[in-house]
């Protein structure tokens, strides 16, 4: 009996330590937001024809990544190992020594058919492993595109999000005095390269809008003083008139599938929302209230619409079903809210807020929570999302005597605001989807 009792005790005793000695678990709930130090080396050219790309491609990749604020390219003068020797062995300790956490190498070769082949590899310096590597081929004059695609790959591998470097921005290039302002439609790569004018400035053009799914834009032009909407296919150069729309002040926006456009028309002091099917060209009215309803934008799933309205007494933002019906107010702060644009990733709606003589760009969740104002100025207007939904472009005017506006980008943290290169003054930017 005593012996049985003893054994039972001993058994229990063995169990106790196992519980007490459960494996240590530590919760780290705070980190830093420093940019990742990344070493982007010159690529190795296998022949003289690739020599130029061997330095220019990494330079564009570096500029793209640096512009995000998430990466800090390391000054190449600090590099210890040279590009050529990396083709046989990467001495990770030498990259660690200069605090690189990621490393990019590459090779440029010329294919037999005259095209250029660019391959790159991204390494995790601490882990000493290759994270990704791809090769691309194209005609030599297309080297900037390859650079942006490589930057997108690297961005995606290190952040998990899609990149936005292989994209373009359409905007209104402005010049001339305030009373006789010339406004031209212009397009450029997101980094300002390959700039081109699409119109000659004879007619006033406004508010270009990109289709989220195709390389098409709509814009509003005042022809003989009347607002007319055009649709422009950038792939084919084909241009169509969608119609004359008296009472229109903004160009229509596309539905996510590019098959419909949504817009507002004002009549007798009221303004209502309409949707037009681009195939049948039939329009349907979505709102019918004795108030102003304008600035509509689709959610990325196409099921909802966000718009601005003064139906509650002041200018606020509302969300409603894409087929119309009851609307739910989502903005509640002081001041007036306008120009809502739904993010391509669906989680936020960007807007312009006006309060006490100051303009703000802000974001809010579609349910109205989490409002944040990320930038402000004497006048900021026209937010447009990069296709990954992490960065916005908009234009800003300062309170200087002469009118001048510039296009800026800002990321969702609100800390990485950059002025984009444009030809002279710029306004009304519209960010393209990823290039096909």
């Amino acid at each position, binding site marked *: 009996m005593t012996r049985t009792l003893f054994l039972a005790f001993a058994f229990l005793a063995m169990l106790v330590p196992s519980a007490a000695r459960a494996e240590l678990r530590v919760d*780290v709930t705070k980190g830093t937001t420093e940019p990742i130090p990344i070493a982007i080396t010159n690529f190795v050219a296998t022949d003289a024809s690739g020599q130029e790309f061997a330095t220019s491609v990494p330079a564009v990749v570096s500029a793209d990544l640096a512009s995000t604020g998430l990466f800090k390219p390391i000054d190449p003068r600090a590099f210890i190992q040279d590009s050529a020797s990396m083709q046989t062995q990467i001495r990770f300790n030498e990259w660690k020594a200069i605090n690189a956490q990621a490393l990019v190498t590459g090779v440029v070769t010329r294919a037999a058919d005259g095209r250029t082949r660019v391959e790159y590899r991204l390494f*995790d310096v601490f882990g000493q492993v290759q994270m990704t590597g791809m090769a691309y081929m194209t005609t030599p004059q*297309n080297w900037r595109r390859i650079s942006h695609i490589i930057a997108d790959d690297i961005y995606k591998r290190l952040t998990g*999000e899609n990149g936005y470097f292989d994209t373009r921005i359409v905007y209104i290039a402005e010049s001339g005095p305030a009373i006789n302002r010339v406004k031209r439609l212009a397009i450029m790569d997101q980094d300002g390269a390959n700039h081109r004018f699409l119109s000659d400035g*004879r007619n006033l053009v406004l508010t270009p809008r990109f289709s989220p799914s195709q390389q098409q834009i709509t814009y509003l032009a005042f022809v003989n003083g009347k607002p007319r909407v055009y649709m422009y296919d950038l792939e084919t150069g084909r241009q169509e008139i969608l119609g004359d729309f008296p009472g229109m002040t903004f160009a229509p926006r596309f539905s996510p599938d590019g098959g419909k456009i949504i817009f507002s028309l004002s009549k007798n002091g009221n303004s209502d929302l309409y949707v037009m099917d681009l195939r049948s060209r039939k329009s349907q009215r979505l709102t019918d209230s004795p108030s102003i309803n304008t600035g509509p934008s689709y959610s990325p799933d196409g099921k909802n619409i966000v718009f601005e309205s003064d139906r509650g007494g002041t200018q606020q933002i509302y969300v409603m079903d894409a087929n119309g019906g009851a609307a739910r107010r989502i903005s509640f702060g002081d001041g007036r809210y306008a120009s809502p644009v739904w993010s391509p990733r669906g989680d936020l709606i960007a807007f312009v807020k006006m309060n006490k003589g100051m303009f703000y760009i802000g974001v809010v969740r579609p349910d109205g929570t989490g409002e944040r104002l990320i930038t402000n100025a004497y006048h900021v207007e026209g937010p447009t999302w990069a296709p990954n939904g992490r960065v916005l472009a908009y234009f800003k005017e300062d309170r200087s005597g002469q009118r001048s506006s510039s296009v800026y980008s800002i990321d969702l943290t609100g800390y990485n605001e950059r002025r984009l290169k444009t030809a002279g003054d710029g306004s009304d930017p519209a960010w393209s989807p990823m290039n096909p």
Partner: protein
Amino acid sequence: MKRPLIASVVIHSMLVALAIFGLPHIMNKPEIVEAVPVEIVANISELTSTNKPPVKAPPKEDPKKEPPPKKEEPPKPPTKTDTAPPPDDVLKEPPKPKDKPVEDKKGDLPKKEDKKKPDKKPIKKPDPKKEVKKDPQQDFDSLLKNLAADDPPQPETPVDTKSDSTPEPSPNVSRFSDVLSMSERDALIAQLSGCWNIMAGSANAESMAVEVKVVVNQDRTVREAKIVDQSRYNSDTFFRAAADAALRALRNPRCSPLNLPPDKYSEWQSMTINFDPKDMF
């Protein structure tokens, strides 16, 4: 009758105590070290030593892995089929307004040989007291800017940034307080916080918690670090990026050796570290 009972209780208690304190390692089953997908560099502090891993062969492409069938995009026919008259002010676009798209995109390049053997174990050293390198007592509230929050003219705007939350002791803390003291745990957490980089502004960044199983050498360098949720690592690009960031924190030279009490090796030689950015948002 009473005396034997008392004796029995006393003796049994002694036996229990002996079992608890005398045989601590019986139940401490050795960690099964599985093949780790990404290996930790054990010797990261010795930057000057050139014990480089055997990185293999150059990325010389072998012809056979040249592109899968290129999806050559024939330049779009410059269909100048204007169905409607373009506005007279629109410049005639060159039919192919865009750069020709990149023509072929080959699959992933073969991975360079980068499997390296675990670095030699560093020699155990008696461990000088470690100062907490970077005290991340920074203002993390400002991770996402909100002008409304610090702008006096608009106090009415809903403020969404959470007020600074002092790190709540995790529910597990008390369970382990007998193992590592609070300050010892905090020292480790503070150290890792300084090496852990978070991508602010990413979608769902706040819910991207990553558990890492870590095996630590006696000299407090990390021997192995393995992401617990491997299937998510392989299927979710956001999680993979967050997981890689957690591994980079553990491998960062600034965080080696780990701030751990050398005399409690048996307690921390194997642990799970949960990188959860919840307090950042």
